[in-house]
Every structure is written in C-alpha cells, then in structure tokens.
C-alpha cells in the first residue's frame, strides 16, 4: 500500500519546484496588475492636472460670480454655472419620484413575465444609449412638440430621460439587495406589502438609492449633447430671474458654453474656456463626493 501512495504523490523536490513556479506566476501577475493600476491613475491624473493647471489662472471668486463682459471676451461664467445647477436640481426633482417608483415597481410588483423581462432589457439598453440620442429625442419631443424653443424645462426633461434608466436599475438592485429576512420580519408583524416596502425595504435600500440618484444626476449635469439642442443658449445679456418663468426660457450652462467655446470662430478666450472646464469638473467632483459621503455614512450603519 505505502508504495502505491508513494508513487502517486510527487516527491518533495518536485512539489517544491512546482511551488516555486506558481509563486513566480502570481508575482508576475501582481506586477502586471500594479502597472495597469498605475497607468490608469496616471491617465486620470494627467486629465485632472491639465485642467487644473490651465484653468486655475482664470479661477477666482469674480469669475464664478459675475457674467461675461465685452462680448464674451472677458468676465465670469456665473450665468452658465447657475444654469448648470438649475438643470441639475430640475433633473433631480423629476428623476427622484419617477426613478424610485420605477425601481420599486420593477423590483416588487412587475414579477417575471416575458413582457417585464423585455421591459427590463430595454431599460438596460437605454442605460447604455449615447446621450446625443437623448438630445435628439428631447429636441423632437420636448422642444418641437411642446415648448417650441429651447428651455430650462425641456433641458431638465431630456436630462431626466437620460438619467432615468440608470436610476431605475440602481434602485431596483438596491431594493433586491435588502435581505429577505427583513421583509419576512415585516410580513410576520402583519404589515401589508406597501407598508413593508415603505417602512422596511426603502429605508434599508436608501443609501444605494441615493447614491444612484446623485451619481447619475451628476453625470447628466456634465453631458453636453442632451442640452445642446434642448436647453442651451449662447450667452444673452437678458436679466437673470428666479421665478417660474425661467423654466420656459432657454438657459446658459457650462457644457453649452464649452461647446460654443470650441466652435470655429469663437471669440471666447482660451483662458476662460479652461476656467469653465475646471468649474464643470469641480461641480461634478463635488456631486460625486456627496454620493461617496452618503454611502460611507450608510456603510457604517449597515452591518448585514
């Protein structure tokens, strides 16, 4: 018996040799992973550093808080910054109810019929659709059919369309990630389905839902194509107002300003374009930071 086992198990020297080979392999793999990681980090850093270096000279409080002067050749970008913030808030107000209810519906009520599977596949496809398609859709529907000219509300609606699929999907998966044991507890206490959703599932899924909401709204706010045809306006000197009327008017915004700035024959000086670029990047980073903080705080409490 002993000899049979001895024959089948390789000698210690052979085992050691194999072991060394495997160690070398995993070492090489680690090196490869690290170099890829460094490469990616460098690429991202290069983008950020370039924008910061080129944008910083233009950046100061006056740049952010005043409008353009001398036919765009000087002055700040407050109207564009304000427009981008308004677009983002408007978009958030639309996607919050629609996206969350859509996600709840898909996760809890839709079931698994063939129609629902098809709908879900469509939502996934929409989430991957280039934003310019939404821009054209918004132009065809919100602008040409409803408001007849570009406007803040048409821009918000278009951005909302763009952000919704991702929000529906993140909401759905945040809800599905809530442990069944919480749901069972709610049901066993005599709660109705809706009560369980409202009191047990949504609070537990909230961090995931909010993260999805903020990230995709922030992403939408940085997109130029959806608002190019639906909301944007080359800077006008019309007085800025805060009222319901402003929703019907076109609105200057950062991505539009950038697109204009790079148009052939643009009069906007390069310094201002880089400053705009930096502002937009900071705006989006700020929003992502908010999402990260929300998630980190929720993580601390989430022990399951």
């Amino acid at each position, binding site marked *: 018996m002993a000899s049979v086992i001895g024959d089948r198990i390789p000698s210690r020297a052979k085992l050691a040799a194999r072991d060394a080979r495997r160690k070398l392999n995993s070492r090489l793999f680690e090196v490869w992973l690290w170099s890829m990681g460094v490469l990616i980090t460098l690429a991202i850093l290069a983008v950020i550093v370039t924008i910061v270096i080129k944008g910083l000279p233009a950046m100061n409080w006056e740049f952010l808080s005043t409008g353009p002067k001398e036919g765009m050749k000087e002055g700040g970008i407050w109207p564009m910054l304000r427009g981008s913030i308004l677009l983002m808030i408007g978009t958030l107000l639309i996607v919050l109810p629609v996206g969350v209810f859509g996600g709840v519906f898909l996760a809890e009520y839709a079931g698994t019929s063939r129609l629902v599977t098809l709908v879900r596949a469509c939502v996934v496809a929409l989430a991957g659709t280039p934003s310019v398609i939404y821009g054209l859709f918004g132009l065809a529907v919100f602008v040409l059919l409803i408001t007849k000219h570009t406007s803040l509300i048409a821009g918000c609606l278009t951005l909302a369309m763009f952000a919704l699929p991702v929000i529906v999907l993140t909401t759905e998966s945040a809800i599905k990630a809530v442990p069944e044991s919480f749901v*069972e*507890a709610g*049901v*066993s*206490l*005599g*709660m109705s389905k809706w009560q369980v959703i409202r009191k047990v599932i949504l*609070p537990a899924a909230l961090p995931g839902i909010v993260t999805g909401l903020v990230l995709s709204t922030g992403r939408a706010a940085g997109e130029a194509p959806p608002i190019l045809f639906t909301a944007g306006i080359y800077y006008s000197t019309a007085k800025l107002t805060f009222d319901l009327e402003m929703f019907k008017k076109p609105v200057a915004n950062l991505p539009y300003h950038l697109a204009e700035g790079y148009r052939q024959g643009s009069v906007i000086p390069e310094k201002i374009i880089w400053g705009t670029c930096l502002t937009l990047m900071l705006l989006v980073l700020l929003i992502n930071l908010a999402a990260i903080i929300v998630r980190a705080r929720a993580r601390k*409490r989430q*022990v399951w």
Partner: protein
Amino acid sequence: MVSEIASRENIVVEAKDVDFYYGKNQALKGVTIQIIRNKVTCLIGPSGCGKSTFLRSLNRMNDRIAGARHTGLIEIDGENIYSRKTDLMQLRRKVGMVFQKPNPFPTTVYENIAMAPRIHYGFGERELNEIVETALQKAALWDEVKDDYKRKHALALSGGQQQRLCIARTLAINPEIILMDEPCSALDPISTYKIEELIKELSGDYTLIVVTHNMHQAGRISSHTAFFNLGELVEYGTTESIFQRPAKRETEDYVSGRFG
C-alpha cells in the same frame, strides 16, 4: 390524541388532516393536531420532516412561496384561517413569529418595537414609549438596554439580545400565539438559557409553539411535544409521556437519540 385536554376552549389551534405541497414535493401528510392555549408546545423531529412548514402554515407565511398549496383545515380560535374572509394582516398580528436567525430591522432598538404598533394602530409618542418599555421588560431585555435603547442600533446588540428584541417586537402588538422556529439554534448556551427562561415566563399569557431539534430543550421548556417524521405527525402528547412512555417505536428511537 392528548385526551386530557378535550375541553374546547383550551384548544387554540386545530389542524385537521393537513397535506402540504411545495409543487410536487409533499412536505406534510395528514397532520391532525390540537394545540393547547397558553402552554408551550414543542415540535421536534429530524431535519426536513416538515416542522417549519407546519409552523409557517399557522401564520400563512407559506403563502409567500410560489407553488405552495395545502389541503385540510387549519383553525385558530375556531376560525378557518384559510377562509376567504380571513384578514391576513390581522391573522399575522394575532400569530406572531420569531425566526431562526435573529432579524431585527436595521434601525434603533426603540424603532424596532415601535414600528408595528405605530403603523397598525397609530399610537403617539407617549403610548409608544410605554409599549416599548413594557415589551422590553417582558422580553427580559430592559435591564440591558434601558440606558440607550432609543439611540442604540439593533444590530449592535449581541445575537441573544437581538433574538430577545425580536420577541419584544412581536410582544408589542400583543399576539395570542407566538411561533418560534428554532429560536436558539444560532445562539450560544447562555443566550439559549435566557431565551428558554423567557419562553417559560411567557407561557400562561401566550400560546407558544416552538420548533426545536434539541430534545433536551423540548424537555426543559414544553408541556406538550409533537414528534414529526417524514411529513407525518408521528406522536403527540404531554412532553413527559413523549419522553418517558412513547407509544411508538419511531418516537422512542428518536427521543433516545438512536436516529435523527
């Protein structure tokens, strides 16, 4: 069976000839049993014999499983709980449940208990305070959490404390019956001891139906024991008779530890 308890008002749960199926798989076969009010009844038997299935058919948690169906009659307080008139939410308030793995909601200790009374009966702050305190006391958790139960996160409690919190949570809506599915199997011996003491304490005011695979536990806490095997109720009677004078060979083999 259990002839000495024939008086009708003593019977709280009555099952007659219950078959239960998960799709084609039959989990219960002709189960007939009468469970006695304000006592502890233990359901014992090897794993997979249908204890949980029977327990979960009493508060209709099984309704949530696609393809689950049953035949036969289950009555609580003389009412068919599967009748069309049954108010499912009300049934589940009357028949509380404690699960194998403690499953408090991911919120404060206070909120865990206050949630159901607030939702169901619209109690205000002052009444809720009383309800929460009483429920914590009844569940023998008050002394351990009285300083910070309004702030303390439920998931920061130990496993045993979490399970007592789950008991407090169901006590807060004053059920008649409390179902417990292996409530100690995820707990250490000291926590188990505390829950067993609590179960004994609660009987008298509540009917407790407790699934356990621990026969010693059944011996310690219950007045009646039902032995299930392969989906059938093999034998049912006072715990003493089941352990001391089992009528069937199967029961004797199981309680003496020869199988299962």
